[in-house]
């Protein structure tokens, strides 16, 4: 394992210290427990939008804290959910009197810890709602798994709900909007290489040169199937087809296409893949109205990508376009 770290045990805190220095104008970082806060939190009478999860997915979630997106992020250890104390502290520090919305990715640990935190915050008299995102079509939603995972759609959900909260939409409205976005966003990912969690010191799985994992989550876990590496066209098709079938997306639909790098795939390959995805969607008469391309929800240094499609309407387009000022997303300001 070769990484720019001093000690696996302090990676997250060491990274947070650097992040706080790099973005002192936007963020305030607390360490015990660890919470990344909007510099101007709490914002009076605004719904607090809070998310979090394991570290190692940067810029998710801390990179999306700021005006027009998240009020707070709770970074857990690498690939491990935060504890209830962290989430409860985030709620306490961002509650502006309008309640808090917790955005939780559907992974067992995240759901359990946020659930417990919600109970703690409710006991403190804060109106807290939880929305679980489960956009990963690689997992069949059945009794035989923990349910679909929350992956790339999380980024789009945080942006859109963050914009609504910034405009003064109340907690009921933010919650309903979040559930609507969860209902119409779908994702699928693939890995060309595994990643190495610092404290583990070795890759979470090994792939031969001619193999890839199809249907991965974001924690370096193996995917649903191991298949032969093909051309970029074949890879993008393998990601898009299950996404398109699932909702389903059809001719005339307006969509946001999010082409995401898992961390190790360079922009040259990502843009190449994005171009293929746009072509495949155009062939089906699907209108790509907004795009996001880059490493936004990653798995450390893993090579690979994911594709996310969100069905748009005028309201969602307007909220997507609304100003945002965070370390990782910034426009309109």
């Amino acid at each position, binding site marked *: 394992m070769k990484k720019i770290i001093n000690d696996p045990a302090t990676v997250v805190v060491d990274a947070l210290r650097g992040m706080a220095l790099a973005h002192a104008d936007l963020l305030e970082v607390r360490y015990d427990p660890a919470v990344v806060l909007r510099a101007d939190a709490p914002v009076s009478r605004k719904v607090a939008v809070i998310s979090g999860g394991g570290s190692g997915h940067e810029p998710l979630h801390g990179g999306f804290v700021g005006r027009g997106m998240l009020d707070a992020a709770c970074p*857990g250890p690498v690939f491990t959910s935060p504890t209830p104390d962290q989430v409860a502290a985030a709620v306490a520090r961002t509650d502006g009197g309008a309640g808090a919305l917790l955005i939780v990715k559907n992974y*067992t640990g995240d759901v359990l810890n946020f659930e417990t935190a919600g109970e703690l915050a409710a006991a403190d008299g804060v109106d807290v709602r939880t929305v679980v995102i489960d956009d990963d079509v690689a997992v069949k939603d059945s009794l035989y798994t923990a349910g679909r995972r929350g992956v790339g759609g999380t980024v789009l959900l945080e942006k859109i709900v963050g914009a609504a909260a910034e405009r003064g939409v109340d907690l009921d409205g933010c919650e309903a909007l979040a559930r609507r976005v969860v209902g119409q966003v779908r994702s699928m990912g693939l890995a060309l290489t595994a990643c190495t969690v610092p404290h583990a010191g070795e890759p979470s799985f090994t792939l031969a040169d001619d193999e890839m994992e199809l249907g991965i989550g974001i924690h370096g876990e193996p995917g649903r199937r191991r298949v032969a590496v093909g051309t970029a066209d074949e890879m993008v098709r393998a990601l898009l087809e299950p996404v398109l079938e699932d909702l389903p997306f059809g001719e005339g639909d307006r969509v946001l296409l999010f082409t995401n790098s898992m961390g190790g795939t360079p922009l040259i390959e990502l843009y190449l893949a994005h171009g293929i995805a746009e072509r495949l969607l155009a062939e089906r008469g699907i209108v790509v109205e907004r795009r996001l391309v880059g490493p936004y929800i990653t798995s450390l240094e893993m090579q690979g990508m994911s594709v996310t499609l969100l069905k748009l309407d005028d309201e969602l387009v307007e909220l997507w376009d609304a100003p945002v000022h965070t370390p990782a997303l910034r426009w309109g300001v």
Partner: protein
Amino acid sequence: MECTAESVAEAMRAVAAVVVEHREELNRLDREIGDGDHGENLARGLRALESKLDEVPSSPGGVLRLAATTLISTVGGAAGPLYGTAFLRAATSVGDVASVDGEAVAAALRAALDGVVARGKAALGDKTMVDALTPAVAAAESVAVTGGGVAEVLAAAAEAAEMGADSTVRMVARKGRASYLGERSEGHLDPGARSTALVLRTLAGRAR
């Protein structure tokens, strides 16, 4: 034989030492079907508990409650809330008495299992810690009902938990991160079931 706050604290220190010793093994089991941090996470929580036990609470229930809150606030992941809930329910079951007997230990294990099932919503056969804890509770109860002491009750629980953990090798995971692997999770020992067996074996070893 009955156990006191000090003996429960001593047993929890031993649990911390054993989990730290098996940290790599648990990480490896988790890496095969999950994300490889089960040993790391449990060890972090138990080390934190060890340092808090410099001041031992006044009752066995108090020690279990301290274990619960420490694990919930330091472990994260699925293991934090699940182990935390287990210890919290055990603490509530034991109450504020000064010492506990075999019957109380069996009842505490039953309460722990009920808590884990309620929180994690896993059933027998889902390839989780429930597959180790369920037979452990049944074994503990059958020994307690015949008047067995703390040591006998825990020894029976530990043995049943080990067999239960071994049985997860043949299972396809239906809960937790391993469930995303589907059929590919078969043939691997569940790390949560393994750590449950380790904890119970250590507690049994300390109860004399």
